[in-house]
């Protein structure tokens, strides 16, 4: 048994959260520069260039890239040979988020769903845990903004709709979202499982680097075909019309029921701020 104090986990998540708020992932920065390069002249290219300037400025000045510093999403895979000690894990995670959002001058965007009263410190975080083999702890941290989260959708397709149905669902989601989620977007897609697991898979898919593909060739083909169709929509950066509406489509899958084909599409704006650490 390997003993790990949750205080150590708190410190790691605190640093991940502080860093994530002010800088995009390397793959997102590269994809945005490439998009600015290849977009035609016009308002969309102007906006892409401004966004590249923005994330460079934010990283240099340690300022939030976007004022929507999001809800804190923490995904942990905990090896079953690891033994956690100290404060309850949930408290350690929330404490990390509370401190990072205060010290980083991040916006506190979490509120009661009915009264709309702000919790004041951006807690609670959304914590997902999975038990895995070994004694390591794998931590993925991602602040999730809601301009894009609001544009996400779940489809309970019929098995007969198959691959074409999946691609149509992804493209339709981006089309309906239009200019609202700050395109260019990234689509995290969960295929299969149940009503709830497909949404979790969709969020997990977002944490994969832009430009990478599923290890399954048939699913990688869905990613490529969906991306091509999305970029043919012509929505463009900010909805200003152009060739770059999405930077990537990432799919994760799980076995499902013989009667169903759940598909969830979690939309992420170009502000991808994911971090990964192993303890």
């Amino acid at each position, binding site marked *: 048994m390997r003993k790990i104090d949750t205080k150590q986990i708190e410190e790691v998540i605190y640093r991940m959260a502080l860093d994530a708020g002010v800088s995009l992932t390397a793959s997102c920065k590269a994809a945005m520069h490439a998009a600015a390069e290849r977009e035609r002249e016009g308002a969309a290219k102007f906006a892409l260039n*401004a966004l590249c300037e923005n994330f460079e*400025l934010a990283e240099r000045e340690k300022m939030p890239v976007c004022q*929507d510093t999001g809800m804190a999403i923490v995904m942990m895979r905990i090896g079953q040979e690891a033994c956690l000690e100290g404060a309850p894990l949930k408290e350690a995670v929330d404490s990390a988020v509370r401190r990072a959002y205060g010290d980083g*001058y991040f916006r506190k965007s979490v509120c009661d769903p009915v009264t709309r009263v702000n919790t004041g410190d951006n807690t609670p975080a959304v914590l997902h845990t999975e038990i895995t083999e070994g004694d390591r702890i794998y931590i993925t941290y991602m602040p999730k903004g809601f301009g894009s989260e609001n544009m996400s959708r779940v489809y309970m397709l019929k098995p007969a709709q198959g691959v074409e149905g999946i691609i149509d669902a992804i493209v339709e989601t981006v089309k309906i979202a239009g200019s*609202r989620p700050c395109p260019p977007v990234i689509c995290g897609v969960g295929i299969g499982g149940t009503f709830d697991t497909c949404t979790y898979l969709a969020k997990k898919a977002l944490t994969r680097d832009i430009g990478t593909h599923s290890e399954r060739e048939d699913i990688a083909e869905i990613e490529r075909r969906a991306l091509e169709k999305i970029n043919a929509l012509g929505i463009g950066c900010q909805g*200003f019309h152009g060739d770059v509406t999405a930077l990537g489509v990432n799919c994760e899958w799980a076995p499902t029921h013989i009667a169903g084909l759940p598909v969830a599409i979690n939309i992420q704006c170009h502000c991808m701020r994911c971090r990964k650490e192993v303890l």
Partner: protein
Amino acid sequence: MKQLNLPLTSKEIKELHAGDSVLLNGVILTARDCAHKRIKELLERGEELPFELKDAYIYYAGPCPAKPGMASGSCGPTTSARMDSFAPDLLNRGLGGMIGKGAMSDEVRRAVKDNGKIYFAAIGGAGALYAQAIKKSRCIAFADLLSEGVYRLEVENFPAVVAFDCYGESIY
């Protein structure tokens, strides 16, 4: 790029067309979901607003806290469509215009046209760039809403694109 001082004259508004890139200078007021709900309730009860609505420009935004030495934290626009149900009435009551991101409804587009006003799109996601354009910031209403309160911002060289013009045209 075209420099504009707020509030705009009707002559200046007539010279602007959907798709034009501009730099805004002057005073804008932030307001988003919760602030709009309160503004609506005050107006419905016939009470006075804590700020002058006439010729004001509402920026759909909720800033990050300012770091020491800065006027504002990151402050890009939020999705305007969530304010679709509020905008026409405010325009009819004399609002100068709105600044946000993304398309708004056809009803809003018509209200912009009918009142000879304007809707600007700021660049969503460019929070740090917009913080640099903000020279002064002060919360003037609904401070209990934290970032959702109404902040009076003095801006210089604030980049925006004309989204809905006074002719009913849209960039989207």
